[in-house]
């Protein structure tokens, strides 16, 4: 997006903010509203969170401050949030799956559960795909399993525990065996595939340029529904492996926050998510459109997600 269109977009959203019947006029933060991002600087959550904060600031005139609180895929940040008194005007932004995984596996060590927070909304869904180099001698999950059986084993790169479980589930259902190589994030998975050290691996957006250039192909979708950018490719579930992962980027505050504040902040978030400049960032970061499930929908997403994570981890 160039400068002009950005200024137009900003101007337009500012105009809309003025002309539309202003929501929740009665509440505004006394001081800065902080968005704490549960990941370090430079990732997709960070990028989306910073632009979200910027658009919210432009729309509402609030002083929105964005900070990074990395640790445990957001667990450190949500731990801090849960231990605060309510009404501190601090919003946490994280991804559902890493939090749910720790809640399922080490819930007894964590000082919070999903009821510890008031949910504000969601930003986007991450689509998780199993991809392979274009030269790989298979195109679908079934063919990949067959190839693994023929070769004895097959190297697959993963970057988080749920993906390991999806592959273990595949082993259990099909009898094939995989060498699971754990990588530091999607970028390293791509490096391992391109370098030929593994034949396939998981990507949550990093693979997109290579799909476009034809260097890689999608083998299977790992979400509940099919991938938006590859609707012909079957999911793991459709291929006979009953396992899926649905990571959602969401926002929440310390439980017990003033309902007026929740209303005003969630409305501001919703408005920002609808802004075209934000949609563009989301499409750059996760290859999907922004999705806001709203206050109730986000809570439901977490409850359902916890149930699914329990099934996936066999607890």
């Amino acid at each position, binding site marked *: 997006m160039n*400068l002009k269109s950005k200024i137009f977009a900003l101007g337009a959203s500012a105009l809309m903010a003025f002309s539309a019947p202003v929501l929740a006029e009665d509440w505004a933060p006394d001081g800065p509203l902080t968005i704490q991002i549960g990941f370090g*600087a430079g990732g997709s959550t960070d990028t989306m969170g910073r632009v979200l904060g910027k658009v919210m600031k432009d729309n509402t005139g609030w002083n929105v401050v*964005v900070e990074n*609180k990395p640790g445990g895929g957001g667990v450190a940040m949500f731990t801090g949030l849960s231990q605060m008194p309510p009404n501190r005007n601090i919003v946490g932004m994280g991804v559902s799956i890493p939090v749910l995984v720790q809640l399922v596996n080490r819930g007894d060590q964590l000082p919070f559960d999903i009821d510890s927070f008031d949910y504000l909304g969601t930003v986007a869904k991450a689509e998780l795909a199993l991809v392979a180099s274009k030269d790989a001698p298979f195109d679908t999950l079934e063919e990949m399993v067959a190839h693994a059986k023929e070769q004895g084993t097959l190297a697959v790169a993963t970057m988080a525990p749920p993906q390991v479980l999806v592959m273990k589930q595949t082993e259990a259902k099909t009898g094939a065996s995989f060498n699971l*190589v754990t990588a530091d994030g999607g970028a390293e998975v791509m490096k391992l595939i*391109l370098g030929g050290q593994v034949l396939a691996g998981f990507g949550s957006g990093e693979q997109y340029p290579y799909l476009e250039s034809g260097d890689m192909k999608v083998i299977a979708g790992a979400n509940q529904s099919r991938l938006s950018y590859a609707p012909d490719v079957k999911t793991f579930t459709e291929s006979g492996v009953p396992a899926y992962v649905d990571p959602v980027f969401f926002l929440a505050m310390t439980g017990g926050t003033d309902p007026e504040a929740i209303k005003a902040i969630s409305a501001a978030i919703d408005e920002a998510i609808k802004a075209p400049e934000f949609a563009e*960032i989301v499409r750059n970061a996760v290859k999907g459109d922004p999705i806001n499930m709203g206050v109730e929908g986000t809570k439901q997403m977490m409850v359902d997600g916890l149930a699914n994570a329990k099934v996936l981890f066999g607890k």
Partner: protein
Amino acid sequence: MVDLATITAGFGDAFTPFNLMFVLFGVLLGQFVGAVPGIGPIMAMAIAIPFTFGLDPLPAIAFLVGVNKGGLVGGAVPAILMNTPGTPDAAATALDGHPLAKRGKPLKATKMALFSSVTGDLFSDIVLITVSAPLAIMALKMGPIEVVALMIFAFSILAGLIGNSLIKGMIAAALGLLVASVGQDPEHYTPRLIFGYWDLFDGLPLPSVAIGMLAISEILRRMSLAHGNVKSGIITDGSNRPEDRRVSWAEYWACRYTMLRGATIGTILGALPGIGSTAAAFMSYAMTKAGSKDPSSFGKGNLQGIAASESANSAVVGANLIPLLTLGIPGSVGAALIISAFMIHGMQPGPLLFEQQGRLVYGLFGAMLMANFVNLWVGQLGLRFWTKVVSAPESIIFSAALLLCIVGVSMATSGLFGVAIMLIFAIVGYLMSTFGYSLVIFIIAFFLGPRFEKSIAQSLALTNGDLTQMFKSPVAVALLVLSVVSFVYFMRKNAEAEAIDSKT
């Protein structure tokens, strides 16, 4: 391949007074923030990104490139003038830079750092612009097995820095690796040694450990020495002879092989994601020392030592863009920040970048070249300013530096928790150096540790637990042979040094 018209158009877009202005702003901000103790180059980038939201892509990227490159030059300043490196790669610069500054030649030391930093940077930029594609493909062939071998090679070269006690060097390295193992384990993602603090799940925050160990521990030591006797932070004008205030062409030219070697090491390591500038700076330093006719002059203010370290760590930053632009793989935290800035400005690094946005990429290259020259020019002025600043009384410098480190680290990590860790490591660092353990070895092991363990885990997974398959990779075998050679060589040197040491 990008055609010539796109290339010239790209460079044409870059070389405008408007973009030059943004490069200049960026370099000014980067040099300033990079030189403030406790903040450093990465922080400078993180702070700068939001300011670019409203800009066109090219000026925005030009600005960030300026910050990034300015931060590199700035980062060497506190290391040399105060012996308080804010980043571990600058610690190698401090080894010879600070002694030279203490001998009353702070301007000479910082200028040598500036010249060799810009030289190394320019070298890697030229490599990036001309041969990034084949280099990136070579980097891809470095799989986990080769990376393990490369790390072993790096460790073997670091043996050259161990000094006169092998046992104490081993302890320092092992302690660094132990501290690096805090946080999730590389294969099963279980929380390891975090003692219930989830903030540690991603490992101990790097800025806390680096600044605590390298900067605060030094400030603590110096405060105890200054007790009751307040001096200037550094004697700036101990000598008014012009040759002590500048670096002559002859002195610069004498370092040409050192800088070429440093820049080459930096470029190669920079092209491989995840190894980083610290290893490059120390490898270059150790090799230069080993190759020198007078190794005992190192650590006492040898210009070659400054040139070795700065040319290597600056070359890494340019070379980090090789995997970033061609493959979309960030090689370091700084590179990850650049990628997110690119994404905000609608640039998608990866295989199609040169095809789809060639003009913008060559605009970026143009901005990088501009930034190098601006860096040189601003640096000349800035260094005078900083040597003036540190000639203030030590009392004010130490108290200000401590406050800045507290604020900087709390901004870079999760608030005061990160500051508390910084203090713990400051005390650990002080005790280690008091008892004669090398902080440098510790910090390198700490920085390389996680990648080393991860690569071992990956190699084990790929080979079904049979590491002898390493011998099937010619690159790995070559690196392992080199490791043995360099280890034996350095051990012999160390033994000689020890023999001399025990005689005196």
